[in-house]
């Protein structure tokens, strides 16, 4: 038999795989950004458990979830909710996820140059904005105090 015939004979015995790698790989490519975060969280959680000699079962109990749920978390394949991440942080007393706080920096020169020219009109606009904010705050406080308390369902 020629090699070509051997190949034909061999290919006749070949079946399809039980799953679809192409789909799985495309899923991983499409979701790479959050999967990477989930993997890093899993690394951190496992590392903390290792350091403390803590079992996954204990973590499940403290989180009040099933051991299967913890098993999924430590595989790094779960799209975790903020609630789950916060619970993990609380129970393990670690930081897993941090959103930078919003800061506005205003640079005030020690000696404003003449060219800066902060006009009276700008000062007036600033004062007017402040007044408007105060007014809004007042209205908000009033509406809160006059709001009906929640009614219990009868």
């Amino acid at each position: 038999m020629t090699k070509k015939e051997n190949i034909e004979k061999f290919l006749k015995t070949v079946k399809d795989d039980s799953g679809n790698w192409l789909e799985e790989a495309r899923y991983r490519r499409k979701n790479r950004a959050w999967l990477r975060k989930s993997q890093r969280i899993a690394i951190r959680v496992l590392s903390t458990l290792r350091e403390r000699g803590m079992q996954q079962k204990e973590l499940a109990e403290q989180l009040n979830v099933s051991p299967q749920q913890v098993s999924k978390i430590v595989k790094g394949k779960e799209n975790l909710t903020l609630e789950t991440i916060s619970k993990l942080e609380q129970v393990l007393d670690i930081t897993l996820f941090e959103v930078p706080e919003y800061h506005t920096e205003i640079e005030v020169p020690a000696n404003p140059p003449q060219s800066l020219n902060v006009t009276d009109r700008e000062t007036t606009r600033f004062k007017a904005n402040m007044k408007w904010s105060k007014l809004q705050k007042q209205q908000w406080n009033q509406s809160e105090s006059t709001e009906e308390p929640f009614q219990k369902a009868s």
Partner: protein
Amino acid sequence: MDIVRIISGVNNLLSVFNEDEEMSEFRLLFKNWYDIEYLTNFFESNKSDLDVLTIDEAVEQTVEDADRLEESLLSVAESDTEQLQSLFKPLFPSEYRLTTYQREKAYGTVRRSWLRVYAIRINPNLYVVTGGAIKMTQKMQDRPHTQKQLKRLAQVRDYLHEFGFTENDIESLRAE
């Protein structure tokens, strides 16, 4: 031994089927290389091969390497599976023959991935993936998990002989 198509309807890229895990060895590789718990346990057991890296760093590095390798395979699979020869290289004799032992450093300016996909090439467009490994030592004989891969390569070669292929018809390869 069962051999399956990794991509339905495509005969270029095949794999040995793992009966216990009920999936191809090829799919199993990526399932494990993205499983943080599996990787952590693996590096715990092979801590002595890590040199300067911590277990956590090794896990993170493996996932990055798996991403790169899977992306290369996916790009070829989506465009032209006949380009598979650009990914698979002959298995270096140094990977399985006894040579001077030299530890590969897992750090440096150009870091070589330690992930390996092993395959047998029947012709330039027909590959059978036999398995893969996280290879952290120079020779495949150095560790039981890579030794197992050598054994598997031999088993698949024997299986292919049953179809009439000779040793000259087939070649052992690796992708990394």
